[in-house]
Structure formats: C-alpha cells, structure tokens
C-alpha cells in the first residue's frame, strides 16, 4: 500500500480517536471554531457536537454568508437520467439491489430511448444532467455508459455520471468523452457497517470503492462528488470521514472541484429499516458545519427531500439541486405512461419533491436566488 493513501488517513482517524475529540469539546471550542476562517478537523468536530446546538443559528448565518461570497445568490439546476435499474450488487437499503425482493420491471434504455428522455428534459429547460446506472458492470458495461455520455452531450451542456466504481483507464475514457463529473457516494466509511449492508457483488469491495474518486480525479475528471448515505451509520463519525475524504481529494486532485451531497436515507425496501434516522435539525447542523469547513465546495441537495425542506435548506449552503426528477429509467418519457397491464418500471427511491422544473425555478426565485442552468466547466471546453 502507498504510504500516503486515504485508507491510511482513515486508520489514523479511527472512531475511538474521533470520539475522544468529541468528548473534549466544550462551549469555548465551539465558539473558537465559529470564529475561524480556516477550520481544522477538531474545529469541525466541535461544530458537529451536541455542544454546538445552541449556536446553530450562528452557524447558519455564517454558512449563508460564506456561500454567498463564493457562489453568490445562485442555485445550479440539474436532472438525473436513470439509464438502467439492473444491478448485480446486493445493498440492503436500495430498491435496485439484486435481491431487494421487488417485482417491478428491470430495464436498460436503448439508444433511441435515451434520446427520447434527453429530448424531453431538454424541452423542460434542463442543460445539466447526471447519468445513473445500477452496479452491473457486466450487463451495463463501460462502453454503454461512454456511448450514453456521447448521446447526452448532443442535448446538454454538462454531463456527469453516477455509476459503479471503475478502473482508472475507464474513468480516463469517460473523461475523454467529455464527462464533467463523477458522483460516487461511499455510502458509509465505517468498514464494519459497509460490510454488513453490502451483501454481495463487486460493490462489497470496500477499498476499491474508497479509492475510486481518486482514480477518477487522476484520470482527468474535473468534478468529484462524494457523500455518505445519512442514516446507515452514526453520522458524527461518517461526516468527519467525509470531510477528511474531501480534503484528501482536494490535495491529490488539486485541479478538480470536490463537491458534496447530503442524501438522507428515508424510504428503504421492507427487509431493511434505517438504523440511524437523521433529523432535519441534524441535517442542518451537518450542512452548516460542513459549509464552514469547506467554504468553496459545491453542495448538492437531491430530490429525496420534500419541497418544503428543500426550500428551507437553500440559504444554508446548498449550491445545486435536482429538479423535476424521476429515479426510474425512462421516467420522463419512455415509461412515463405505463398501461395498467404492464408492470411498472422499478424506481431507485421515492421522490419527495414532486414539483416540476418550472415550480422549482419559481421557488428558487422566490427565495431571492438566481437559478443557473449552465455552468459547463471543463467537459464542455474539452469537447469543443
């Protein structure tokens, strides 16, 4: 193993070590952290601790100010396109999992169907998309994803992917195709829990997934999005590890934007109950503390949250949102109107924010923010 690797950093910042820091937090440490421009991991832990709760409003005010400085009053909009819901891994919390017990239809979109979906989203004004698949590299190979990127680029200014973890050479291929970003959640950095919730499949390989974003960055992908599935484990630890990962990626892939997502696990298949449900107050504490720690990082909010919650979270540090999403392959057009005789196509999770793109746009404007459709960074220029 390399001497300087993220897994070595994780070994150093093990749960006992982090817990000791939590135990030492007092009000003074929270206030000190709130005052700083550049926060250490210890400062972040102070802000994530229970001792910080009385100062949540102060944290929110500062998070709002820092976000405005770096991003202005703007929110970038994107939409996910699910290419396939086939999956060869068995992750207990996911409806796509190979053994989720769900009987709904499994499909992989054809080229024509991808075009139809792109066309529909285009009509709705979307210019930035995220292409998604399950974890099935043999049935939905890299070449298929690469082709989908090429198709999507005919319709959109910016195309990113959220797919299975792959080798560096495959990421290089996607970078060459003009893929702007790779989103890959570690789900949880807790090795034991990771092992328990990923029953089988390639995704079970913890280290291969842990190092995937770094491989993507090395391969020239210029936007790396990391995150944990909030609810799988104790977030007090996972968020610290996520922060360490973001910092590590900043140093190793200094030309890449490191962006973060904060998906809260809410709806799960019946075989799995969310073990560490995260409250809205906790989500606010997480987002604001992370904003203070990473003032310049884009933060995404998915359609997993309700319309009301999403609107409240906008000024707290969020810089990009999905809008009018469907988590079902073909959900915008191809399989949108299914006849009663057909089995419905399986979606990855239930969308809470059911608003159309237009409705999300007007909600953003009502908050005093400007919706941004295009911020095509490097992928665009590369493909000129």
């Amino acid at each position, binding site marked *: 193993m390399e001497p300087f690797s993220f897994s070595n950093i994780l070994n150093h910042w093990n749960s006992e070590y982090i817990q000791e820091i939590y135990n030492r937090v007092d009000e003074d440490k929270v206030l000190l952290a709130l005052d700083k421009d550049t926060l250490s991991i210890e400062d972040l832990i102070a802000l994530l601790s229970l001792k910080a709760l009385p100062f949540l409003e102060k944290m929110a005010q500062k998070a709002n100010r820092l976000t405005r*400085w770096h991003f202005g009053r703007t929110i970038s909009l994107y939409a996910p396109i699910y290419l396939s819901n086939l999956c060869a891994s068995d992750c207990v919390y996911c409806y796509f999992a190979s053994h989720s017990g769900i009987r709904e239809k499994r499909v992989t979109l054809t080229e024509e169907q991808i075009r139809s979906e792109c066309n529909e989203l285009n009509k709705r004004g979307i210019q930035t998309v995220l292409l998604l698949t399950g974890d099935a590299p043999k049935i939905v190979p890299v070449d298929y994803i690469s082709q989908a990127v090429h198709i999507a680029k005919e319709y959109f200014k910016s195309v990113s992917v959220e797919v299975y973890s792959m080798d560096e050479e495959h990421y290089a291929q996607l970078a060459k195709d003009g893929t702007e970003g790779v989103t890959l959640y570690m789900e949880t950095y807790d090795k034991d829990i990771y092992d328990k919730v990923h029953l089988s499949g390639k995704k079970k390989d913890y280290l291969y997934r842990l190092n995937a974003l770094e491989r993507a960055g090395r391969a020239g992908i210029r936007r790396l999005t990391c995150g944990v599935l909030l609810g799988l484990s104790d977030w007090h630890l996972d968020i610290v590890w996520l922060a360490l990962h973001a910092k590590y990626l900043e140093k190793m892939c*200094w*030309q890449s934007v490191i962006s973060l997502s904060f998906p809260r696990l809410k709806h799960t298949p019946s075989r799995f109950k969310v073990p560490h449900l995260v409250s809205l107050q906790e989500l606010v504490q997480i987002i604001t503390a992370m904003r203070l720690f990473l003032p310049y*990082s884009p933060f995404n909010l998915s359609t997993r949250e309700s319309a009301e919650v999403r609107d409240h979270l906008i000024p707290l540090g969020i810089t990009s949102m999905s809008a009018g999403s469907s988590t079902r392959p073909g959900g915008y057009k191809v399989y949108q109107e299914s006849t009663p005789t057909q089995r419905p196509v399986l979606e990855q999770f239930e969308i809470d924010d059911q608003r159309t793109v237009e409705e999300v746009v007007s909600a953003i404007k009502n908050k005093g923010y*400007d919706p941004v459709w295009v911020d095509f*960074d490097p992928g665009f*220029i590369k493909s000129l």
Partner: protein
Amino acid sequence: MEETNSTYLYNDPLIIAGRKFKSRILIGTGKFPSAEALRKTIKASGTEIVTVALRRVDLKKPENDSILSVLNPKEVLILPNTSGARTAEEALKLARIARAAGLEPWVKLELTPEPRYLLPDPIETLKAAELLIKDGFIVLPYIQADPILAKKLEELGTATVMPLGAPIGSNKGLKTKEFIKIIIEQSNIPVVVDAGLGAPSHAAEAMEIGADAVLVNTALADAQDHEKMAMAFRLSTEAGRLAFRAGLGPQRDTAEASSPLTGFLFNSNSNNKS
C-alpha cells in the same frame, strides 16, 4: 480650477487599447440574484465594461439569458472571460467562440486551474496571451500581483494587466498592495485591480495608489441594495482617482510631467522621439 467633478472626470478618460471610457469601474456578472439586480447595478455604477463568463451564458439565445439580456452592447463593452479554461488552448477556443458569436474581439483572460481559490496560472496565462494576441484579440489578463509577469505580458502586447487584490470572492481588500504598487510604478499599460475588493474603501484605496481602474463583482452581487452599493463603488472609485490625480499617489504623475525642468540637458540627444 473651475472644473466640476464630472467634467474633471470626463477629461480624464480610462484608455484601453485606444478606446476611451469615462468610467473606471468594471463589473463582473456572476453571483447576482436576478437579472434585475444586475441591471440596476450596471446603471448605478456607470460602468462601461462588463465581463461575462462564457461558460455561464447562452450565446445562441442571448434574449433568454439572464445575464446577456440586460447588456446593451451600445452602452457597455461586453468583455467575455475565459473562466473555466485551464490551458492556453482552451482559452483560445473560448475566445474564438465569443468572437464568432458577434462579440468584439476583446477578452478577459482567466486561467484558473485550481477550483477553490481560483488563482491564476501564470505560465498558461503567458502562453495564452501570446496565442490570443497573434489571433487578433485585445487581451486583458487576470494575474497574480506579480510585477515581472506584468512586464512580460506588457511586452507581449496585452491591453492591460489585472492583478488580484485578494482571492476572488474573499472581500478582503488589497492584500497584495505592495506588489500592486510596484506593478503600477513599472507599467506602461493600464493596471486594473481585480478580485478581492469587498468594500468601496478598497476600491478607493486601489485608485489612490494609482490603479487605472477596478473590477468588482461579489461585493456588488451580494449587496442588500444593489443600486446603493453600485453607487457607493462608483463614488469611491471616482474619489480615489481624484485623490490620486490631486497628488496623493507619488508614482505615476512624475512620468507624465508636462514641463520637465531639466530637459535642456538632453536637447541634442533624443532616443525617444515618440
């Protein structure tokens, strides 16, 4: 002198690449909450040069674009910037797209390979300036406050240099003041202080030390009252300029002295006839 404030400023234009501007404040268009806020800012600031990020605007449908729709090319020079580019070649491509879309061949050269502090890459910037100038562009490069780089760019033929006061969006003011002073002292082309100016007093300070103009974005975009803040920056920029002209700044005026006292010593020896 009987001149009023405004006629004095009128007689003291900012000249970039032979073109005259009354206003010495350039405005960046990112980060505004709405087209209306941007429109008010442009009007109240009196700006005549507005820079837009090509990666953010839709050149094909300017009427639908929340930034381009408020810019009237008859009133302001639209200065496309190359933000998003990481190499000289990418910057050239972007500039050519803007020119092909009908914008004037002016370009604010921004090469910021690191996405967090958005600091300019001096090596690629120098390369890009050369490519762009050869291609017929008028180039205004965003640079670190590096006096040597500024001279090298001037020698290549850039129209200005635009050194940063502090990292973009930091509102920290003239953190690089000592180096900007040297750049101003040594420069034969306009020096526009770009990035980091978070308050009208920062703009005044830059103008007082002899900067030719300032570029402001975040401080204006983030204002509660866009009109008032734009006006404040306009007044402070003008105030700083007047103070500099009045003799506060020591460096620049000496080179422009109209009646040299020792000229007679060199009457027969004239290398510089221009």
